[in-house]
């Protein structure tokens, strides 16, 4: 790994983390993190789509006409999402049913689109691969932490196995919709307060869509 690749990799995991720094891809972050098992599947799906679509966009970047590049990117991403969707339906039908529309919604996940638009279009495939993988892993570990907290405290289980014992009263709210918002907010708060220096922090609330 060259130094540039290493730098890009570390940025995706830390300083430029898609979830807690750029606040992208929040929809699925909130929706699938109530159960750890679903979260793991979702993360694998996202990493797969993100890395491969990044490489593909990057490899085709000289042939994609500027005016229709968004459409081409969407089609490339959608192709990989369909592959993930079909694989899940075939091998993990239960999880596929529980995840419902959220697998298909990887297409509109702003992280995937954002990396294709902001990075893959202007960089060679090798670097795009590293970048996609880093952003995917950066997304995954945040989701996994939140999922562990939510499942442990919300249902007293981990991976469906009860671990908290009978003395624990479930914080049902954490497994429900409002709990997702609170959990992510507290996570962002802790990370920003402890790990990010003020100079690194971007202007709040600008983490919008690449449009």
């Amino acid at each position, binding site marked *: 790994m060259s130094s540039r690749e290493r730098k890009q990799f570390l940025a995706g995991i830390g300083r430029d983390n898609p979830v807690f720094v750029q606040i992208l891809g*929040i929809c699925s972050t909130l929706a699938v993190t109530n159960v750890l098992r679903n979260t793991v599947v979702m993360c694998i799906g996202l990493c797969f789509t993100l890395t491969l679509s990044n490489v593909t966009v990057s490899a085709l970047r000289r042939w994609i006409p500027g005016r229709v590049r968004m459409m081409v990117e969407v089609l490339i991403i959608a192709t990989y999402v*369909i592959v993930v969707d079909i694989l899940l339906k075939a091998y993990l039908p239960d999880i596929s049913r529980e995840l*419902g529309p959220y697998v298909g919604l990887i297409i509109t996940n702003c992280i995937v689109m954002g990396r294709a638009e902001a990075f893959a279009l202007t960089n060679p495939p090798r670097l795009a691969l590293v970048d996609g993988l880093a952003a995917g892993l950066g997304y995954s570990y945040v989701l996994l932490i939140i999922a562990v907290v939510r499942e442990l405290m919300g249902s007293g289980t981990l991976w469906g196995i009860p671990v908290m014992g009978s003395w624990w009263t479930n914080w049902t709210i954490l497994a*429900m*919709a409002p709990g997702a918002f*609170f959990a992510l907010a507290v996570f962002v708060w802790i990370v*920003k307060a402890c790990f990010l220096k003020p100079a690194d922090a971007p202007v709040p*609330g600008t983490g919008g869509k690449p449009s």
Partner: protein
Amino acid sequence: MNEPASLWTILFAAIFTNNILLANYLGMCSFLAVSKEIKTSFGLGSAVVFVMTATTALNWFVYHHVLVPLNLVYLNVIVFIIVIAAFVQLVELIIDRVSETLYTALGIFLPLITVNCAILGVSLFMIIRDYSFTQSVMYGLGSGIGWMVAILAMAGIRQKMKRSRIPRGLEGAGITLIIAGVMALAFMGFNGIL
């Protein structure tokens, strides 16, 4: 769905108890980025209501009359996103020609909408829940209105909050997420009316 839910139940459920934003977390990105002022929120909100209703209807037709007969159901996500993108592009062209005031009010929000996950999400939910045509349209309309209600409420709160003192790390996204959580709690209270 065991029995066909009545249209009004679907509409109210989509607006309040099953709010697309607060219960299904869809459309969060533009929600967080745009909800700073009531005026822009209203613009984006109305664009979402319109596009969501129309694309849900279109996608219902495409799914049941093109994809199912051709046995191409597995391609649904890719087809839906193309329909949505094409529709948004078309509306943008028409609005640009017809009315300049409408274009300045809505036009700038239209490109944002193509990648709004709520729009695609509604179409996918409609398939999963096996809605009929009228049910789908009601569901699309209700979800759009629900999204607009949520973003307007959030914009109002954020405008009031401008001068409040917020812990450093919570500024921006953090506090917005907490407010969204409180709003989700409040909307859960509507469960009783259905």
